[in-house]
């Protein structure tokens, strides 16, 4: 059998570079979120007993386009994702990981005009 460990070793070595590591971790987090949304939609679809073709008809898209979306063969557009969520009686939300604390307004914050 061939030794297929080159990629793991190569990545481990290249990712010692802090710039690469930072971007890699950032990209993985971004991908995780996109994947999670698409997989959650697919699970809702399956739970609702709705075929991809029927979901496509419900949102006015052709079924090949929706099929391609669920197999990651094309980049999901937000409006299509939102339409599918609505068709499955769900919604998309952005949840801040941590809320920024807003300082109380003071006179110095006011922009004076005129």
């Amino acid at each position, binding site marked *: 059998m061939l030794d*297929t460990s080159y990629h793991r070793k190569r990545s481990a070595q290249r990712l010692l570079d802090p710039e690469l590591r930072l971007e890699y971790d950032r990209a*993985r987090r971004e991908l995780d979120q*996109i994947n999670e949304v698409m997989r959650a939609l697919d699970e809702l679809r399956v739970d609702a007993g709705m075929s991809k073709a029927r979901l496509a008809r419900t949102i006015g898209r052709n079924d090949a386009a929706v099929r391609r979306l669920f197999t*990651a063969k094309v980049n999901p557009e937000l409006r299509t994702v939102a339409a599918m969520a609505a068709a499955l009686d769900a919604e998309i939300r952005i949840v801040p990981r941590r809320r920024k604390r807003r300082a109380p307004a003071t006179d110095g914050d006011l922009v004076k005009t005129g």
Partner: protein
Amino acid sequence: MRSAKAAPKPWDVIYYRASDGSVPASDFLDICPPKVHARFLAVIDDVAVAPPPRFSGGGYWEAMHGSMAGYYEVRQSGPSREQFRLFCILENGSPEELGRRGLPGPAIALITGMRKPWMTKFSGRDYRRVLDLGTEHLAQYPRRIKES
């Protein structure tokens, strides 16, 4: 309630090695800007964990069509919107078939990559070069890959 299934083993990621010993995909990644390089690795690792037909790659991993059918590309943008593409082939089949290829399991084979300025297209000749390398890769039993 959905039953918890054990996550399948991630696919291997392998690099096609040319007859002259060069490794085009690795060489390509090394000349990419660091951020592009890192994002390529992230997408490939993501797809290896959840290979097709599962959704993975966040939309940066796309099946190619027409003369490039059977190939997948990872798409990334760099500085000045320069476009970077990494071309891959999926290695899957029965254990016997994978064994014939010298592979212990399914794998993503990284063939080569190309870059182009924004709003330009690769030529037919560019794609021909990718196809030639891919065809050579697929003709090898066992596969000729970069080993450690």
